[in-house]
């Protein structure tokens, strides 16, 4: 096992373990904190893949903005400080069995899929290539602009909903 593999397993355990605690945590605020830890793990995986730009954006947007918004939303819910009891109900065993069976179904597909393999490393000017591909009409200019229009529409919609009725 190489060092890269060890680090990958470490980050994978961090991501999945924190994700598990996110759904198993009794407390809503703790669940959000575990979610943030899980997102940190994903950022670590991006760094491992030499996609530093994605890692930076992941931390800036998901941890710096989205999770903070989730915390705000969580804090505005009622019964935040109360202990809502165990997060599992009496159907957890049945759910685990069905999920396990589903995994058995999926496992051969995952094992048999011809995953593409990258032989050469990431080029040094990857960020420049990313930037150029986002404004190149032959590549991703249209999806990029469509995403911008969608975000603009969401912004206007949010302002319309939040505006006081005159």
């Amino acid at each position, binding site marked *: 096992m190489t060092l890269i593999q060890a680090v990958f397993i470490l980050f994978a355990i961090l991501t999945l373990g924190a994700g598990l605690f996110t759904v198993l945590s009794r407390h809503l*605020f703790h669940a959000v*904190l575990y979610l943030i830890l899980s997102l940190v793990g994903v950022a670590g995986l991006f760094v491992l893949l030499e996609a*530093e730009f994605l*890692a930076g*954006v992941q931390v800036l947007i998901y*941890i*710096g903005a989205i*999770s903070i918004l989730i*915390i705000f939303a969580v804090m505005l819910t009622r019964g935040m400080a109360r202990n809502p009891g165990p997060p599992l109900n009496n159907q957890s065993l049945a759910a685990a069995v069905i999920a396990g069976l589903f995994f058995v179904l999926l496992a051969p597909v995952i094992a048999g899929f011809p995953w593409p393999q990258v032989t050469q490393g990431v080029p040094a000017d990857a*960020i420049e290539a990313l930037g150029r591909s986002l404004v190149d009409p032959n590549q991703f200019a249209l999806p990029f602009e469509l995403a911008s229009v969608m975000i603009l529409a969401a912004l206007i919609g949010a302002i319309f909903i939040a505006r006081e009725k005159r």
Partner: protein
Amino acid sequence: MAQIYDFIYNLLPYLGAWLRGLLQSWGLPEDAIFLIIGLIKAFLLANFGLIGFAILTYVERKIIARFQDRLGPNMAGPYGILQPVADGIKLLTKEDTMPAGADRWVYNLAPLIIATCALAPLIVIPFGPGAVGTDLNIGVLYALAVGAGALVGVLMAGWGSNNKYALLGAFRAVAQLISYEIPAVLSVVVVVMVAGTMSTVGIVLAQDVPYLFVLPLAALVFLISGVAEVGRTPFDLLEAESEIVAGFHIEYSGMKFALVFLGEFIHALVVSALFAVLFLGGWRGPWLPPYLWTLIKMSIGIFMFFWLRATLPRIRIDQMLNLNWKFLTPLMILNLIGVALVDKGLRAAGATGGLWAAGMFAFNMAMLIGALAIPGYLGHRARMAAMASASGEEPEALEAVGAH
């Protein structure tokens, strides 16, 4: 003589080369040398932050005292320079309290996260050619992203303390930090666009003319939002003593309080270091060695923070939000578009060097004067209208104007 000057000028690269040679002469493999040098760099940079924190607490108190015609700390050692040591010993001997009903893990982890996230951006600050923690190709983005991690720490501190003032302070802090992140990021984007790179070293190398004289508007907005992100006066409403006692760190005592405080001061240090790198030309300057130039340029930003604190009163929360969302953010979006067009136009017209810088400077100054004049004119008209109507109610227009 020339040799001595050369040695002092290139002190940091020579030290690095000597260390590398020493490790190689011990016959260590290349990976181990990389690891050891990385650890030494991390140790030095962390201590730069911590010692900087100790010095800054003393310097701030002295400078504020000077502004207010007092003496400041003057008992511990000559001119009171041992005051940070005395403060440290005092904080170490304080009782380490934890409020009843506090969330144990969240409460204790929060200061660590705040301090770590404040220290981490120091890695990408260049102190000279070849003297940088590591030259990431996303340097500026990294500094901004890691700085945003402190938000989580602030919320954890506010929530984990089980105290209403702490929670209110945390909400205020996060609202302010998340809002002012936007103009700060936009002004950094302007710099990145003009420099053509996100690496801090690359940005310094691109500044034949310091960007303060090429992009003065972006520099001003970065400084304003930097002050807001650090939470210093006039944006210190997140720890307004008369309203919410002390903000999110009210329940912390002893060394945990010191860690929160350290996070704030190092954040100020990092913001002024980024200001030096992005707008003042980093280590570049005549005669003096590069690391001295870096420190001098960092002190300029720090001194501005102290100066503002001693001069300006605190603003209200609605003014804080109005200034950001109705003035700085639209202004920076327009500036981003304008700079992109003018930059392309000047380069297409064949302007390089001084001519290009002069054109950019003229455009930015015109935009700055326009941006200040139009709200000024509108505000003046609103005030005149309010005075003419002379109704007892305070018109909303006045408040909106107050933000500008």
